[in-house]
């Protein structure tokens, strides 16, 4: 029987989509023939708004560039401003920044557990991990005052020092999460449904990965060791002991394994930071923010987020407002060109499964 080609719209209202975007796929039978991504449901003109605010006011916008993981955005912008201005960050400020980054990574991984298992039809794990994520958000609340959006990392350091008793509470949370991870992994990685669904699906060829702009866990899932934290160590990552896990295969399974190992590394980094953090100043105070001018200059700064590298191109023309802030998250390539290349030949039921493994985050695409 001759099969008819049908167009199917996944999103913007669809349980399997990873945010406000649409993946338009053409299918023959159950097989995807071609795919194209459409955005425009979430545009909030953030980059334009930033141009109309002063250097510090931008922070209320920055954290909203990516809902599941706002902190890398703050850090990247702060580092870019510091690079243009030549502002030093006190040693303790750097350690607290790394602590915030790794806590952010941890809570974002917990959300990923929910998304990845939910798109395979395993709903229990999502309930567990999103519930346990609240313990990390509690730590954030105590440290920064906010649960999801923090606006905690500022040019020159961080806003506050660690509260009293934070170290013990954070260590207890890490112990608890480590125990829970064993249960998670039993439920997900030992599950034959997940194994069969994930293996050999959504393969990114190793020889094309870098050229296609693949970054982060998907790139490490192709067996390529690349991580901004070791390629261009920022803050105090060069003083910490951690490994960058890589797995061969380039499929959803390899990407999941990379994330499984990275969570363990994040917990280990948090423990090291809490133990080794020196005493001292945490904030190199900036002048009056309303009159704070940054010398003219340009800087491109990258940070490793859960989805891959986040890059900020910041331009100053010597005034109290940014001239231009151009943001690029991992999803900008992952959700467009890479997805268009790996979806053809896949089954319809695997589309949202692959989307979750690539970490397609629409607010990062249309800033």
């Amino acid at each position, binding site marked *: 029987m001759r099969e008819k080609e049908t167009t199917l719209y996944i999103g913007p209202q669809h349980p399997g989509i990873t945010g406000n975007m649409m993946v338009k796929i053409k299918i023959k039978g159950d097989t995807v023939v071609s795919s194209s991504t459409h955005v425009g449901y979430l545009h909030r003109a953030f980059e*334009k708004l930033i141009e109309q605010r002063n250097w510090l006011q931008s922070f209320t916008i920055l954290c909203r560039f990516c809902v599941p993981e706002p902190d890398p955005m703050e850090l990247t912008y702060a580092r870019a401003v510091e690079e243009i201005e030549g502002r030093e960050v006190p040693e303790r400020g750097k350690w607290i920044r790394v602590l915030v980054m790794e806590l952010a990574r941890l809570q974002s991984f917990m959300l990923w557990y929910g998304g990845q298992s939910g798109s395979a039809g395993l709903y229990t794990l999502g309930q567990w991990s999103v519930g346990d994520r609240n313990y990390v958000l509690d730590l954030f609340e105590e440290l920064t005052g906010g649960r999801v959006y923090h606006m905690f990392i500022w040019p020159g350091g961080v806003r506050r020092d660690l509260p009293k008793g934070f170290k013990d509470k954070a260590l207890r949370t890490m112990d608890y999460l480590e125990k829970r991870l064993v249960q998670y992994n039993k439920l997900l990685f030992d599950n034959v449904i997940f194994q069969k669904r994930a293996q050999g699906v959504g393969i990114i060829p190793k020889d094309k990965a870098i050229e296609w702009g693949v970054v982060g866990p998907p790139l490490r899932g192709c067996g390529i060791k690349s991580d901004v934290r070791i390629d261009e160590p920022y803050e105090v990552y060069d003083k910490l002991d951690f490994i960058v896990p890589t797995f061969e295969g380039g499929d959803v399974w390899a990407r999941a394994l990379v994330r499984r190992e990275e969570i363990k590394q994040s917990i280990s980094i948090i423990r090291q930071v809490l133990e080794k953090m020196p005493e001292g100043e945490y904030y190199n105070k900036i002048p009056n923010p309303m009159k704070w001018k940054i010398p003219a200059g340009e800087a491109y700064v990258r940070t490793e987020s859960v989805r891959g590298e986040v890059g900020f191109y910041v*331009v100053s023309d010597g005034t109290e407002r940014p001239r231009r802030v151009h943001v690029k998250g991992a999803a*900008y390539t992952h959700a467009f060109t890479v997805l268009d290349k790996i979806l053809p030949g896949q089954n319809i039921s695997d589309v949202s499964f692959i989307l979750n493994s690539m970490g397609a985050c629409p607010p990062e695409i249309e800033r």
Partner: protein
Amino acid sequence: MDNELLKEQELLNAITKAYDVKGNVIRKGRVEVFVKKELIPSVLLYVKEQKGYKHLSHVACIDWIEQGEFQLTFNIWSHADKIMLYVKTRIDRENPVMENLDGIWDQLNTYEREFREMFGIEFTGLVGEKEFILEDWDDMPPMRRDFDTVQYSKDHYYFRPGREDAKDVRKTLTDRTGEEIPDYATKYSREK
């Protein structure tokens, strides 16, 4: 020569030897070259195929309205050298035309579609739907510096009937009910 910047200087020398371009070593791991727009495809292909700069990390577009130019910056990373190369070019703002480059890196297609829509730069031969983020947009490309967001919203949107004066909500309510506004509530009021 500073030994720390040896690799950076070597890269800069190789590019300046092959092409008539100028450049600088900014710091460790950062090199910039200024290229005429006609040479951009050739320089990008050279660094990608000959020098191993395979990862196109980012492309930025900046509107320098005072100088009548757009700036395009291609940020390319080499996993082997651990150097970020900035390839910068300027395009005339009055006639913003550039060659389509998505044959070199596929992901440039997405950037070009965005810049076409947000800055009005035409990429000759670019294939891809005209609408990327905006829908039915017939005004000036909105990321240009001379696009006035306040004026645009005044022209296109209106206040809800009864809210034209944008008064303090609490005052409108108390006028209606006759209640007194306590001092602490008026402390930061715009009406004061």
